């Protein structure tokens, strides 16, 4: 694993391009920027081509003999099949509007990470192999042949793109560079060139229903563990149901949330919200089969995305639910929102989602019949259905990282902010050119959240971290909230590296901190089982109060005694005097002496 330089070193990014033309600058595969090669055992599980042990660091990638033919035939097929792909290969005028919008270019200074040039790597092959001008004029017409080095270059740079689409936002033609990467990766896959961090989860998901390979009994026991933790914090034990036929709603979330911190606290947040709503008519089940919201198949090929996505509707059909509720995930929403109902026809039992609590009908989800939990929760708050105490998040000054896919993939900006503003007293947005549709990537999306490319991740994370640093210094922000499991995995090391003192959380973790459950015990700690900072202060105050009470009680008792003792031969004034003095220290002696004296 390559060592990562210090932040002080890494931040010295040189954006000067090399003197030679880009086509004459050969690719140099730098350690720390390429991921481990996919493993043969995973290829075999999912039937990916060319299973063999290989590494991108090797000279020989062990490609099949007719690799060029396979690649070009695959490209031809896709040019015919996807009009968008052909269009994007044809129309770029190389204006450069996208060039400095990419987090990887900003952080690495590598010109081939400018989206325009990254796409040009494939576009040049398109010209050289598929257009008459390119075939005849070659380099003069911007064309080149598919050589072994070109192939390696494509691999190297298509796995240095997180498919975040920030560049697309600025393209005057609307070229979706992520789609070029997606097709590029499909072509690489035809020759068995993928990365271990993607094919591992894909194979797991195909076998067990989730990326981590959690089997049903383990999934069940993990959620039970969260319920016990919730009981320790709130005194309330939620009892979620699993694989329950006839439930109204099926809940699906990324498996990262049930395994890795800090996502696990968000999973606890879901459980607490659902428990809260049970008495109000929520009829929801979890599934140990459709136990993954995310879809690393989408980072492999459209076909693989479709295969892994199948279980969502299949489980919805098997259980007979009316609609699907989805957790805080990023790319899951790109797949569910933009592909799912064209991959498959939704099963007949699925309807347009209607909140059983508020009656709100979510027309925006009528096509795929799946609702984002932030829409669901924001609607509950809007209708005054949640009893909230935002002061329980007072240890945090919060900002929000828009996850790329919900933001640019479904225009999802307001709901999480609406929730946050209702559950936290201090919320500060980062600068406008780094949030909402202009949000910067976490640096590890699209399956690039693996540790061997920590150098690349820290570079790609620089623009996001820089914006966090701004609100950290200006407003004292100490919590970066987000609605994506990859974010929750990638942002903590990135914060530790660039902006220490800033923690990372999901939105529903904060919601559950604020949510007042019926019959709960007095909360003294947050969902992380960390005592609230004000608890010690409160406890000190309580101790003082209790001590004062003890003194007062003792004094009162002594006064009563004194009154009783003096009742025989003294006046009321004397009793009052003795009472006054008795309230002071040393209580007992004073009262006794006085009583004696009065006698």
């Amino acid at each position, binding site marked *: 694993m390559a060592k990562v330089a210090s932040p002080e070193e890494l931040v010295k990014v040189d954006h000067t391009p090399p003197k030679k033309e880009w086509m004459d600058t050969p690719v140099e595969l730098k350690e720390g920027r390429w991921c481990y090669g996919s493993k043969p055992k995973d290829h075999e599980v999912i039937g990916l081509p060319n299973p063999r042990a290989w*590494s991108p660091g090797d000279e020989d990638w062990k490609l099949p003999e007719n690799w060029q033919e396979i690649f070009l035939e695959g490209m031809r097929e896709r040019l015919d099949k996807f009009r968008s792909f052909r269009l994007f290969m044809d129309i770029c005028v190389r204006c450069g509007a996208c060039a400095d919008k990419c987090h990887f270019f900003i952080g690495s200074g590598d010109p081939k990470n400018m989206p325009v040039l990254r796409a040009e790597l494939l576009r040049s092959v398109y010209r050289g192999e598929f257009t008459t001008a390119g075939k005849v004029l070659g380099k003069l017409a911007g064309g080149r042949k598919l050589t072994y080095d070109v192939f390696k270059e494509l691999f190297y740079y298509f796995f240095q793109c997180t498919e975040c689409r920030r560049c697309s936002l600025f393209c005057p033609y609307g070229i979706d560079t992520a789609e070029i990467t997606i097709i590029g990766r499909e072509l690489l896959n035809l020759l068995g060139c993928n990365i271990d961090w993607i094919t591992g989860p894909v194979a797991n998901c195909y076998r067990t229903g989730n990326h981590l*390979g*959690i089997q049903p009994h*383990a999934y069940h026991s993990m959620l039970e563990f969260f319920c016990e933790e919730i009981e320790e914090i709130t005194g309330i034990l939620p009892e979620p149901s699993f694989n329950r036929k006839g439930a109204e709603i099926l809940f699906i979330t990324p498996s990262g949330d049930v395994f*890795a911190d800090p996502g696990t606290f968000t999973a606890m947040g879901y459980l607490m919200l659902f428990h809260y709503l049970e008495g109000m008519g929520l009829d929801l089940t979890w599934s140990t089969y459709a136990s993954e919201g995310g879809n690393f198949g989408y980072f492999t090929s459209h076909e693989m995305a479709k295969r892994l996505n199948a279980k969502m509707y299949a489980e919805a059909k098997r259980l007979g639910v009316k609609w699907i509720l989805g957790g805080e995930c990023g790319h899951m929403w790109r797949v569910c929102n933009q592909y799912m109902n064209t991959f498959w026809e939704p099963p007949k039992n699925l309807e347009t989602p209607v909140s059983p609590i508020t009656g709100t009908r979510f027309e925006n989800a009528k096509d795929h019949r799946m609702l984002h939990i932030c829409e669901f929760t924001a609607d509950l708050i809007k209708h005054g259905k949640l009893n909230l105490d935002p002061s329980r998040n007072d240890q945090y000054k919060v900002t929000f990282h828009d996850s790329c896919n919900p933001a640019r993939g479904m225009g999802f900006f307001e709901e999480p902010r609406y929730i946050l503003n209702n559950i936290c007293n201090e919320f500060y947005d980062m600068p406008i050119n780094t949030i909402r549709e202009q949000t910067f990537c976490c640096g590890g999306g699209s399956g690039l959240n693996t540790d061997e490319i920590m150098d690349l991740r820290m570079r790609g994370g620089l623009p996001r971290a820089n914006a966090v640093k701004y609100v950290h210094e200006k407003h004292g922000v100490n919590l970066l909230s987000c609605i994506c499991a990859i974010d929750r995995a990638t942002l903590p090391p990135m914060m530790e590296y660039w902006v220490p003192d800033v923690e990372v959380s999901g939105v529903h973790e904060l919601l559950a901190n604020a949510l007042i459950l019926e019959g709960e015990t007095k909360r003294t700690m947050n969902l992380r089982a960390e005592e609230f900072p004000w608890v010690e202060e409160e406890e000190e105050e309580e101790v003082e109060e209790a001590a004062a009470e003890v003194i007062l009680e003792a004094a009162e008792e002594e006064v009563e005694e004194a009154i009783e003792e003096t009742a025989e031969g003294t006046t009321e004034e004397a009793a009052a005097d003795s009472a006054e003095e008795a309230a002071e220290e040393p209580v007992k002696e004073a009262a006794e002496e006085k009583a004696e004296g009065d006698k």
Partner: protein
Amino acid sequence: MATVDHMGKTFEIDEDGFIDSFDSWCPEWVDYVKASEGIQELTEEHWKVIHVLQDYYQKHGIAPMVRILTKVTGYKLKYIYELFPSGPGKGACKMAGLPKPTGCV
């Protein structure tokens, strides 16, 4: 995959030095990883963590989440880092012969 020989045993390892399969685990493997982990002497606490990891893995087919590991052993995460400098995943799980977790983690 690279192979390593140690105390008369041969192990296949991946790029991060994880053993290829839990079935290949043996005490000699722990002795091998010990050196690269910078652990001088294995104590009862090390073995307790290793055994908790292995028991959980055998029952559930996956490493326990960190929160379960700290709860069952009674060791705080900070202490586990003291025992295994690379942490519960890259240190302790590697020694116990468990595979790396992958996905959104």
